[in-house]
């Protein structure tokens, strides 16, 4: 296991390097000269040239990259050209909010998706199975913005039992206020993942239940309950974790729309504004943060995967 861990950690290094190069070159591939953009309508060729020199834009690209990467490693993500504030604290604050939303969605997807998937497999070809899979199919084909708007219409505007926007009431609030605000966006964001997880969990469980080793367990006298929750689930979880890993990525990316619908002060919303304003350091920082968290989520998923499947752990 330690060998695997080290190997897997080593593999992230070239990936992280690649990401940093891509993020760095964003600035240079994007149309328009950053210095030009920064100076806006007051730019003269001389002032642009001077700013380019100040920003180091006249130096060779590798040198610029090295300088930039060096600053990033030290936590210096530059200053937002629009807000004129340090980028890092700004994106971290927003990223934390996005994580709250994604985690809420993830919990919803895991509890309902995996739970319903297992039950549907146990009660295969019963009414429960059919209804659950029908709902999952519906959830799968519903776009997030639509689910979100319907949820707001019903629960916030119609029944008026849940808030429709923000993380806290205007006057501030406690943890329970946060939960109340989180409920609708988390379910909206997690609905598709829950549906996918339910279907994948069900099919993984159904496949595992057919396996010879499940028959062996029955021949040993193991009861159905234990067959499902120990013998089968442990094997099916290898598939489930793979799907879950992809869903976490999807949730992080998909949060942009949910944040917009529910005015959630997350990274996605901020990124949209930063892109519109061509706030390059902000965009770079945000993309870098999201990309790096993707890499580490994948790493975590692979490690869990190896922990679950001894055939990987001991090979």
């Amino acid at each position: 296991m330690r060998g695997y861990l080290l190997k897997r950690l080593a593999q992230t290094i070239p990936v992280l390097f690649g990401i940093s190069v891509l993020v760095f070159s964003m600035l240079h591939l994007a149309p328009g000269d950053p210095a030009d953009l920064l100076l806006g309508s007051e730019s003269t060729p001389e002032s642009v040239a001077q700013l380019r020199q100040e920003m180091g834009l006249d130096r060779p690209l590798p040198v610029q990259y090295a300088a930039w990467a060096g600053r990033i490693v030290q936590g210096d993500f530059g200053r937002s050209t629009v807000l004129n504030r340090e980028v890092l604290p700004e994106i971290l604050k927003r990223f934390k909010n996005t994580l709250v939303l994604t985690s809420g969605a993830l919990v919803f997807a895991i509890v309902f998706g995996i739970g319903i998937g297992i039950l549907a497999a146990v009660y295969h070809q019963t009414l429960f199975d059919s209804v659950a899979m029908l709902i999952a199919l519906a959830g799968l084909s519903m776009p997030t913005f639509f689910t979100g708007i319907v949820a707001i219409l019903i629960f916030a505007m119609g029944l008026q039992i849940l808030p429709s926007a923000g993380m806290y009431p205007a006057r501030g609030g406690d943890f329970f206020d946060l939960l109340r605000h989180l409920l609708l966006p988390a379910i909206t964001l997690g609905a598709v993942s829950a549906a996918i997880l339910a279907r994948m969990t069900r099919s993984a469980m159904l496949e595992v239940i057919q396996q010879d080793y499940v028959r062996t367990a029955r021949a040993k006298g193991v009861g159905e309950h234990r067959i499902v929750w120990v013998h089968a689930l442990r094997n099916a979880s290898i598939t489930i974790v793979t799907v879950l890993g992809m869903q976490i990525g999807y949730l992080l990316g998909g949060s942009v729309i949910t944040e917009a619908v529910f005015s959630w002060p997350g990274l996605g919303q901020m990124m949209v504004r930063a892109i519109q304003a061509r706030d390059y350091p902000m965009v770079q920082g945000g993309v870098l943060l999201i990309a790096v968290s993707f890499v580490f989520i994948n790493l975590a998923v692979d490690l869990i995967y190896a922990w679950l499947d001894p055939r990987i752990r001991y090979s």
Partner: protein
Amino acid sequence: MITHPDQHQAASQSTPPPPLLEVKNLTTEFSTYAGTLRAVDGVSLSLSPGEVFGVVGESGSGKSVTALSIMGLIRRPGRIVSGSVQLRDHGDLLTKSHADMRKIRGDLISMIFQEPMTSLNPVFRVGWQIAEALRLHRNMTKPEAAEQAVELLDRVGIGSPRQRAREFPHQLSGGMRQRVMIAMAMACAPSLLLADEPTTALDVTVQAQILDLMIQLKDRDGAAILLITHDMGVIAEMAQKVAVMYAGVVMEEAAVGDLFDNPMHPYTQGLLDSIPHGTSRGKALKAIPGIVPNLLHLPTGCRYRDRCPAAHAPCARAEPPLHQMSGTTHRVRCWLHHPEPPK
């Protein structure tokens, strides 16, 4: 926990011991989209304690379904439609509740399967998998059961058992996995072992070792073995009695010596002819001409008649009964050997 019937006491009596297992008229069906097929059609078998009872027959003849029916492991779309499975001192297994059958499986009756590669759970350590049977049936604590599992691994001839117990199935060879399966099946010293082609997937030298091991353990625990195989050589060496199955029914049943000396059913003769003489273990049956019939469309009369070299008029008229030859235990389902074939 269920008490084990005491075989030694029974064996020492002068009258023949009551059978350990008595299967009567077992019929198991599967519903498929094309219709309902009878995989096992009125099979009767009787096993004494300490006996090895062989079951042979081509693929699809219903050997595995018979064993799974005895175990109570037939699942949808399968269904046991009639018959009885009497286990000595425990009554008819077919009328037992799920909970009662769970206590019997793995304790009084165990089963070993053909595929050692897929019959062990890939994500649990082999020691754990053996210990599970002990924890279920012997109420052992985890450490006790783990210790006992190491002992069992040692008993089935696995070197450095303590280390092996901590390994996963994929780290073991096919032969070792089958030893693990045997250790698991023998963990609670069952009185009946159902071995469904336990050596088919193994190479010849390993086959011999596994069979020897089974005999050794049987003698130690006094278990009876229902040994399912394709291999007549294995039957000749291991079994005392043998039933020859075809398309869900027993075609012929006899003591092993009788069957080899005097095979009566043309199907049995076909099976024996298809192995070279003087052969031993490891030779699979060569095919008899023709194919195993589709159970959904069995021929009328004798189900073997469209492949039978000796087929004659009565064979089309009615299915022959399993007729006991007078003065012997030899039984055969063939009009050639029946006193009153249909005119």
